């Protein structure tokens, strides 16, 4: 297991030490091999895990005792069980593909070695995050990926805007992290341990009705931490801006790994969250709201990566919706399928951007299908997956979430409806993206000649494309499985031991479940068809519609002015308060006080210096005066 974690770190060291070298090929090879070894070790480990009997399916290692202060005993312990097994396979597997893609993508960059060392460090921290067997080790990785995302998003830091995007990601994540810490404190104070297994064993078995109960408060804080990392309302603003980084970074951070950390953490602690229905309600509402909200913004964006970014925010909303209604298995399932098709689409967009010579505006694309056949084909598969067409990966995971949202005692038809609306919107804006980029008439400026990317970049695309198609088949719902000849739901069976069942949950009858699936698929198909008609058949219609509903369109186009709102109501007042405090308290008061103290001592010193003349008779006089004063004091008394 040490090998899994340490090889990316070694790769980071090697490339970090030779960061001034310019050879992208060598650096990329080293980094890719490092992650590749990690991936192979992960497979071996997971194979070991599968060979264990189901009751004791867990590989735990404790490298050393990290700290032992009073009651707080933390060891650098790592654990592979059913949940983290999935995560390490996704992280190292998709990570390897993204590394491979990066070699081609970063070929011309001068800081390639530095880039690859960051990438390795990121993988290392992400593995810490998912393998740690207690909250503190997780927090180390949690902070580590925050740092790496800052480094990678702001990788082209000479561009002020990109550097600012990096800082935004960093600061927003810090806000969430503060809440994460608070949650950790609450849980430790109440349960006296940070170990996941122990926490889950100690979680209250009865539901906690109050808002201020230990489990509710602790999980709420942890959830706020998760909203930071996983880009949910209200802390999602960093993710779209984070698209400033190199595109493979977007794929790695914003599709497969870091943003899913929040979902992973909640699934990891699911018995604790299950004990706090209030937290669950909040998570479900925030998740559903984010899914719809981000999807509406996605419709109006013109930057290919921003569309994908809002789509990621929206898809993460689905995962939280699943967590919120208690369908942790479905959340993990969607996490995995999403990692496949979103990484695919990000890499595909990277391929497009590469072909278009750094052009990211989809209004200047169109008709690229002809020039980029393989990119188009893989992107097409990703598109089918994300809009939830059967039998592509996204269909199974999304419809499982929607079914749970409808059916679970913690869910409600309203949540289901929001999810369905989100799915409809997703189908619309993803089709729009496809149409504007690959289909229709070409709007490419005449001085750009798009060309297909090199093989190094296409191989990951093809692999991910295949995964996007078949990735969902390991979690085929019972109803469909029955019809197709009793295909078992491998996924549910696999996660079963670690997921707390939802109390009072009854499986839907087949008719309702098929109806729900039918509704969401039909809605998605109709909306995709409408989008196709809009953007391919009659490209003028969207503009006319936008004109007609201009006020609404403008609000959505400007992302509901959330960023502006944050600036007006939170950031600017804070900056002003800080500046005033600095000016009035620090400069005018504290500085003056310290200067005064300094002046006083120096004045006294120069006075004392003037006494010391070396004139002996003066000294004698001082002695004489002193004696007279002392004597007169004695006499007067």
């Amino acid at each position: 297991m040490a090998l899994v974690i340490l090889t990316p770190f070694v790769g980071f060291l090697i490339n970090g030490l030779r960061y001034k070298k310019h050879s992208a090929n060598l650096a990329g090879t080293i980094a890719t091999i490092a992650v590749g070894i990690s991936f192979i070790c992960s497979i071996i480990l997971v194979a070991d895990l599968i060979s264990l009997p189901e009751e004791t399916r867990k590989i735990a290692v404790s490298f050393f005792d990290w700290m032992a202060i009073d009651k707080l005993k933390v060891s650098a312990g790592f654990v592979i069980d059913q949940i983290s097994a999935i995560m390490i396979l996704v992280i190292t597997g998709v990570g390897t593909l993204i590394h491979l893609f990066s070699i081609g993508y970063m070929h011309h960059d001068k800081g390639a070695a530095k880039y690859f060392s960051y990438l390795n460090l990121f993988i290392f921290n992400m593995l810490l995050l998912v393998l740690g067997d207690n909250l503190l080790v997780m927090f180390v990785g949690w902070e580590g990926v925050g740092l790496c995302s800052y480094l990678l998003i702001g990788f082209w830091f000479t561009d002020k805007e990109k550097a600012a995007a990096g800082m935004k990601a960093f600061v927003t994540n810090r806000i969430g992290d503060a809440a994460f810490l608070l949650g950790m404190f609450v849980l430790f104070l109440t349960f006296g341990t940070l170990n996941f297994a122990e926490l889950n064993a100690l979680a209250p078995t009865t539901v906690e009705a109050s808002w201020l109960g230990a489990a509710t408060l602790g999980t709420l804080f942890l959830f706020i931490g998760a909203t930071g990392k996983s880009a949910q309302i209200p802390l999602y603003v960093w993710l779209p801006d984070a698209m400033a980084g190199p595109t493979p970074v977007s794929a790695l951070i914003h599709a497969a790994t870091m943003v899913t950390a929040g979902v992973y953490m909640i699934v990891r602690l699911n018995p604790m969250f299950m004990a706090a229905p209030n937290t669950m309600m909040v998570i479900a509402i925030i998740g559903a709201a984010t899914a719809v909200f981000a999807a509406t913004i996605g419709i109006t964006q013109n930057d290919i990566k921003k569309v994908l970014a809002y789509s990621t925010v929206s898809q993460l909303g689905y995962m939280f919706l699943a967590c919120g209604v208690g369908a942790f298995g479905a959340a993990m399932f969607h996490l995995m399928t999403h990692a496949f098709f979103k990484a695919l689409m990000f890499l595909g967009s990277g391929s497009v951007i590469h072909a278009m010579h750094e052009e990211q505006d989809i209004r200047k694309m169109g008709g690229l299908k002809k020039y980029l056949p393989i990119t188009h084909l893989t992107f097409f598969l990703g598109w089918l997956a994300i809009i939830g067409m059967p039998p592509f990966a996204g269909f199974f995971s999304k419809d499982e979430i929607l079914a749970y949202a409808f059916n679970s005692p913690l869910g409600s038809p309203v949540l289901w409806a929001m999810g369905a609306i989100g799915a409809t919107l997703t189908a619309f804006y993803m089709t729009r993206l496809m149409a504007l980029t690959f289909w229709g008439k070409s709007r490419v400026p005449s001085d750009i000649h798009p060309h297909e990317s090199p093989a190094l970049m296409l191989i990951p695309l093809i692999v991910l494309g295949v995964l996007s198609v078949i990735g969902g088949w390991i979690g085929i719902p019972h109803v469909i499985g029955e019809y197709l000849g009793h295909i078992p739901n491998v996924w549910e069976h696999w996660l079963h031991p670690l997921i707390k069942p939802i109390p009072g949950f009854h499986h839907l009858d087949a008719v309702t479940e098929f109806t729900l699936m039918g509704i969401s698929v039909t809605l998605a198909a109709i909306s995709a068809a409408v989008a196709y008609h809009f953007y391919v058949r009659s490209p003028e219609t969207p503009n006319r519609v936008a004109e007609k509903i201009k006020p609404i369109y403008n609000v959505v186009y400007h992302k509901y002015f959330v960023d502006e709102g944050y600036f007006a109501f939170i950031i600017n007042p804070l900056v002003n308060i800080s500046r005033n405090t600095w000016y009035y308290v620090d400069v005018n008061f504290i500085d003056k006080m310290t200067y005064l103290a300094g002046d006083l001592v120096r004045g006294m010193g120069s006075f004392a210096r003037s006494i010391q003349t070396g004139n002996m008779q003066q000294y004698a006089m001082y002695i004489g005066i002193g004696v007279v004063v002392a004597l007169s004091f004695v006499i007067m008394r």
Partner: protein
Amino acid sequence: MNTDFINNIGLTHYLVLAALLFVMGMAGVLLRRNVIVLLMSVELMLNSVNLTFVAFSKYLGLIDGHIMVFFVMTIAAAEAAVGLALAVSIFKRFNEVNIRFFEHLKG
């Protein structure tokens, strides 16, 4: 010549005289520049103290004051020897015995 007042000399007179001598000596120490005069002034102060010692000794009928005077005189003689030696060597070096010379020794 009326010698009555000699018999009437009491402790007070000695003390007043000693005080006068001490103040004169101190004034010399503080005001004069010549090292030799300075030393003489110091002797004057010491002697005024000696005078008070003897006066108190006689008045109280104790021998202690006399003994103390011998000590003071011994130390004063030693001090004068050292002081004069310094004065002589300063004079040889600088051709004057002005106390201002010591200002060069300040830090």
